[in-house]
């Protein structure tokens, strides 16, 4: 077992803190998510650690509950994108032939339209609810996971042990889950961190545009939208999510970097 480098420890710690507050938001937040407890845009005080928002709700509580919504949606969408993307990617690599062609060209096509634009097009006719958001974000992002997992699996699929499994007469599903998946896991896990960050940015952007999480539910993008008018008067409430998103993004990046480095050192790893 190698030692975990300091940067990865910091990343793990902050990521852990964010997930912890997300799970136990109800216990940690000092006030309820929709309770009006003070005046409009009160400055930070011992009573309201981050001040209050545009209609007098406690900003810290909003941020904590908002983090829960944002992280929940981002996590669910990442999982969905990984399950569909990697399963299809592995299938394309193992089966090959026209199945591979069909899936790959389909993915090329979806990626030819910018993700945000495509999401906006779909959301213009779909009801904007959390399951729909997760579905749209997850499936659109699955294209990127598909490319990566297909590329990784194509390399593995020609290895001797896969050939041996095929000659033994194992089923395709068995080959995918017992031979390909364990060997492709590390690069996928590193990519998962990056995709998660992308999802956080994506859902925040959608909410900011008013097409994501709907009020009174809080989320980081929505908090910016609700408090953006304060900026002109010098009230910084709308900038609080910037700090949260940036620290979460950087800490997950640090962890992903570490996983990736570990993987590459494992690959060349007999002598070092």
């Amino acid at each position: 077992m190698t030692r975990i480098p300091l940067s990865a420890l910091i990343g793990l710690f902050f990521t852990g803190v964010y997930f912890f507050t997300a799970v136990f938001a109800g216990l940690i937040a000092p006030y309820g998510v929709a309770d009006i407890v003070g005046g409009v845009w009160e400055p930070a005080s011992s009573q309201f650690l981050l001040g209050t928002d545009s209609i007098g709700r406690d900003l810290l509580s909003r941020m904590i509950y908002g983090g829960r919504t944002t992280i929940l949606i981002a996590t669910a969408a990442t999982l969905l994108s990984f399950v569909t993307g990697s399963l299809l990617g592995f299938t394309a690599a193992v089966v090959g032939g026209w199945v591979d062609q069909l899936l790959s060209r389909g993915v090329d096509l979806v990626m030819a339209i910018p993700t945000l634009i495509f999401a906006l097009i779909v959301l213009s006719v779909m009801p904007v609810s959390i399951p729909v958001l997760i579905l749209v974000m997850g499936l659109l992002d699955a294209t990127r996971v598909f490319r990566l997992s297909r590329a990784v699996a194509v390399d593995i699929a020609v290895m001797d042990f896969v050939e041996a499994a095929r000659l033994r007469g194992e089923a395709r599903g068995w080959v995918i889950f017992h031979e390909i998946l364990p060997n492709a896991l590390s690069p996928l896990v590193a990519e998962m961190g990056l995709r998660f960050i992308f999802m956080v940015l994506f859902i925040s952007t959608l909410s900011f545009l008013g097409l994501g999480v709907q009020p009174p539910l809080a989320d980081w993008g929505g908090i910016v939208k609700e408090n953006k008018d304060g900026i002109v008067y010098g009230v910084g409430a709308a900038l609080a999510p910037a700090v949260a998103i940036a620290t979460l993004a950087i800490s997950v990046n640090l962890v992903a970097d570490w996983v990736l480095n570990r993987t590459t050192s494992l690959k060349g790893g007999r002598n070092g």
Partner: protein
Amino acid sequence: MTHPIVRLLTQRIALGLLLLLAASAMIFAGTQILPGDVAQSILGQSATPEALANLRAELGLNEPAIQRYFRWLGAALHGDLGTALTNGQDIATAMGKRLGNTLFLATCAAVIAVPTAILLGLIAVRYEGRWPDKLISGLTLSTVSVPEFLLGYIAMFLLAVKVAAFPSVATIYEGMGFFEKLRVVGLPVLVLVLVVLGHMMRMTRAAILNVMQSAYIETAELKGLRPFQIIARHAFPNAIAPIVNVVMLNLAYLVVGVVVVEVVFIYPGMGQYLVDHVAKRDVPVVQACGLVFATVYIGLNMLADVIAILANPRLRHPK
């Protein structure tokens, strides 16, 4: 026997057009995937059957989807993008001015971002692994970790409110002087530059570093050339193709970043038009905007490949 460049170019352009056709079908299909239909979702559950029937007839929903798609595409090719549901205006007219505004914004950003990114990339390569490189990488990494709209508000908070250097809202109208316009779009341009600078600089750095590992660079080093001379004379010309590719990809990215930035600074461009009408569920406008954005995006990607083909010296002299 045609020249290989001509053959490659025709192949690439044909592929681009095919992709565009398929993308238009996807945009159309994207608004048809509902279990119910568009009319129902626009009017909501409480709509009367008469209103539904009227809207269905207006949207032509009584015809099969394939037929509607080809009619829509045919009209769009003739410059007729239909009329908006919400106010009955002709979409092409409403879009024309906004498209101009958006292109103005994106061009300003590109004019600043491209040379800066290449210069920073060159400096980072020259001082690879030392403090200038680390500083540039760190700064660009932090701008990439914050979403565009937040960068916009941070810039607004610091530069328009704390220091009144720029107006906080980029209102632009006809008859405005060119320099007046430039001052007004200062903040949105700054944000767009920051957004693409990170990606562009990192990719430029990677492209030049890749070239720096070639044997002819080692030769140049052994000849005793100075590091900047090596980069400028030997590495840069060979890295042009990948760099042009990077630039084009990021310009395509700029097209999307513009959507969010326009909303932040209330700038009357394509992005705001799209977002407004998504919220109003005005499907014809959304489809038209999607088509324009996809065309620009696919076009820039195609242009990147075309330039890469043209810049590749190995293809210029067929055997």
